[in-house]
């Protein structure tokens, strides 16, 4: 546990990617128990043990041990912005002679074992664990429970570290650690050894991701070397058919086979040894529906009949990664695409669609076509070089996304709340309102888009201009105007304003505008009519 806590401290505090990489390389080459290493790979790639103790319980134990009133714990939490860290800061630190931290996997296995235990046993385990730890260990231990090791290490840095230690290509590592595996059951060798990939039918390929193109399109060269597709606003996914079984993977969310019963029909008709890359998206008659409808589906454990009717999910396939059990990623896009079209057309199934290629002859031509994006239910184009192989991770050069400009609206800030992580203690999370007669109607929150300096200025404004305090939320004088950019708008009965925005952020601080000059609820409703589908 000590080495792991030190690793987290080093990686979390270093400001240079190379230092993070070195720290990870040192850890993975050290004599630490291999079970610990497997868990570190799992934790840093977003996997975590099932939560056996909930955060309320954890906080309650901490309050008891620290001997503090609940309100003071809360006050501290709002300042720190991270529950695991707050608890570590409030617990009494144990004397060095009492510290006897066990290996990481012992604690994790202990936590997993608590699942069916009584509250008393859980509490006993947590308190006993805390007693044997220093503050850094208490922090990482709490993080195991509260979840989310977002401590400033990206998965790609870890992959590169493993590649360096094991002397393998990082694309090979990325592939081996993808998919579903149980860190409690798998060994380091089973996970990263040569046979890792072949033994698991469900294993997806790492997604190839594109950067947004910033330069003029003419820098891409001859338009004939490029293929354009609509960029869909759904969930990136892979459909895998191997050994007679069907698996549906999403980027970020993991295995989602059960969420989408629409895909089950594909299990019998798809040929074996096949992996498709595409977009998971609700569609009727081949036309995509709003992302909001997809969101109503993914949050639920069980899918209702109504949902199946209102938001039937389709798969817009755009790439072929494996065919007849063979890895096709090294072949050029044109070849993969041709075979993909044959497969999809021959199956002729309403759930499996092709993501159409948009024909164009010049870049000017394409720019004109892009103006139809919203009507098509797309958010712009994907540009792919016809000769491109299917690469690993986010890469420049062969694939680009070319998004349409976001929708914007001017709004005034009315509430503020403190942020977390590197924004701890600063008011960085804001709620915005539009005007409705002489009332202000809140319609969205936004947390991003400002520079650190601007955030510091807004923070100072909030502290000087708070009107009321509701728990962690401050109401502030409606004075600061911001331009809010967003990707889409949908009707919502859950919001007072009647709308929900897709990916809202602050695109500009409108210091030139007064709160009287902001947009109105009426403006927002018009946008809903035009773009809300």
């Amino acid at each position, binding site marked *: 546990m000590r080495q792991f806590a030190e690793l987290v401290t080093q990686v979390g*505090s270093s*400001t240079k990617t190379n230092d993070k990489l070195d720290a990870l390389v040192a850890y993975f080459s050290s004599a630490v128990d291999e079970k610990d290493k497997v868990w570190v790979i799992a934790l840093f790639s977003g996997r975590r043990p099932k939560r056996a103790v909930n955060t309320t319980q954890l906080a309650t134990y901490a309050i008891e041990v620290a001997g503090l009133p609940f309100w003071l714990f809360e006050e*501290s939490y709002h300042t720190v912005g*991270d529950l695991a860290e707050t608890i570590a*800061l409030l617990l009494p630190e144990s004397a060095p002679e009492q510290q006897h931290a066990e290996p990481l996997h012992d604690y994790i296995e202990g936590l997993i074992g608590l699942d069916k235990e009584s509250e008393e046993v859980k509490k006993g385990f947590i308190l006993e664990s805390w007693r044997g730890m220093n503050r850094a260990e208490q922090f990482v231990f709490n993080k195991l429970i509260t979840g989310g090791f977002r401590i*400033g290490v990206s998965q790609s840095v870890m992959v590169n570290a493993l590649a360096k230690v094991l002397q393998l290509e990082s694309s090979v590592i990325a592939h081996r650690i993808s998919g579903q595996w149980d860190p409690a059951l798998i060994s380091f060798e089973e996970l990263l050894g040569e046979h890792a990939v072949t033994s698991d039918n469900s294993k997806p390929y790492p997604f190839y991701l594109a950067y947004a193109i910033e330069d003029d399109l003419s820098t891409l060269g001859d338009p004939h070397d490029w293929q354009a597709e609509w960029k869909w606003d759904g969930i990136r996914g892979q459909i895998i058919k191997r050994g007679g079984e069907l698996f549906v993977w999403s980027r970020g969310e993991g295995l989602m086979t059960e969420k989408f019963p629409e895909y089950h029909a594909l299990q019998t008709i798809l040929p074996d040894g096949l992996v498709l890359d595409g977009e998971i998206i609700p569609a009727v008659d081949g036309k995509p529906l709003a992302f909001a409808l997809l969101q109503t589906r993914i949050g639920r454990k069980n899918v209702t009949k109504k949902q199946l009717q209102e938001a039937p999910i389709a798969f817009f396939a755009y790439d072929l990664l494996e065919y007849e059990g063979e890895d096709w990623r090294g072949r050029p896009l044109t070849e993969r695409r041709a075979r993909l079209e044959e497969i999809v057309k021959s199956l002729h199934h309403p759930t499996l669609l092709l993501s159409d290629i948009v024909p164009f002859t010049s870049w000017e031509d394409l720019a004109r076509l892009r103006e139809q994006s919203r009507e098509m239910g797309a958010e712009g184009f994907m540009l792919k070089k016809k000769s491109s192989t299917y690469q690993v991770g986010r890469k420049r050069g062969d694939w680009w996304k070319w998004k349409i400009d976001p929708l914007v609206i001017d709004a005034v800030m009315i509430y503020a709340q403190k942020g977390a992580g590197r924004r*701890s*203690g600063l008011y960085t999370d804001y709620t915005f309102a539009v005007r409705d007669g002489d009332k202000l109607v809140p319609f969205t929150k936004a947390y991003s888009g400002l520079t650190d300096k601007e955030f510091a200025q807004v923070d100072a404004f909030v*502290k000087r201009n708070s009107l009321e305090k509701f728990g962690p939320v401050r109401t502030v004088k409606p004075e600061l105007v911001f331009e809010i950019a967003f990707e889409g708008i949908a009707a919502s009965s859950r919001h007072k304003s009647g709308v929900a925005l897709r990916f809202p952020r602050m695109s500009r601080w409108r210091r030139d505008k007064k709160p009287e000059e902001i947009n109105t609820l009426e403006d927002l409703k018009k946008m809903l009519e035009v773009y809300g589908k």
Partner: protein
Amino acid sequence: MPLIEFSDKGLYCPAGDFYIDPWQGVDRAVITHAHSDHARWGSKSYLCHRDSQPLLQQRLGPNHYQPVGWNEPLYLNGVRLTFFPAGHIIGSSQIRVEHNGEIWVVSGDYKLENDGISGAFEPVKCHNFITESTFGLPIYKWKPQQEIYSGIKAWIQRNQAAGKSSILIAYSLGKAQRLLQPLSEVTEKIFVHGAVYNLHMALVNAGWKLPPVEKVTPDTPKAELKGAVVITPGSAEGTPWLRRFAPYEIGVCSGWMQVRGAVRRRNADAGFILSDHADWDGLLTACKATEAECVYATHGFQAAFSRYLRENGIQAREVKTEYGDDEEEGNSRTDEQGIANDEGNV
């Protein structure tokens, strides 16, 4: 009429007709310490501890100063005033005010641990205690300074071994002087920013024996700056001034470094939790030791701190002052105010 009022110009004693740390110009100002949010420009006369005088002169220029020592009572219009060490920075004092048997103590800023240069904090019994609360949350708990110094020294030695300079960001009045002794144990030469240098010379000219420092100037040979140990206020962060030390690591010395997010936000390579303020336990200990009937909590987490005192049987109120204008008192606001002030001297 209370002996001390919270007026719009600062803490006012009507019976003695003087202000303590006023934030506007007044006829007679009594100063707890030389930080810029406590010792402001524009008053006709300044009564301060004799160690504060050279610092005030350096920062505020020529004025009418009246120096006094600790435990040397004096009378203003029949009100008895006594300075006691506050342990915050050089010259920092608590001010005891007594009249007709009623005793108030104004703490200014303070810490309980003796840093060897600021005098040892002395609890003073009183009826009413006006305390700071900069770190008035239980998440703020300091380790003994020797432990922090060891950490800083080890960090410097690691940087030296890697051929890197060590840039320590520290408040130019207080922490900069406090760091000199431990730093002199790992380096021959301590380089300082102009703001630190000016205050250093003010102290040396007043007779202070401090480990020597060298001011960084445009003429300082580049070769000397390789692997250097440097003390600078935060205003130099992110400026071209730092380039001459490349390659370097930045370590921030501040109580705010207790929270990970604060370290990350500063984009510091290392955060050293070193503060000239009392931590949570220190504040509680100090308040209890005064045996005050009422505690007035100012600048810091005054709402939380005074509520906790009340729940633990000590009558307490929060008071708004301009030593900070809000309970959170933006991370390191006093630091930044001080630094803004320093920039004129660079």
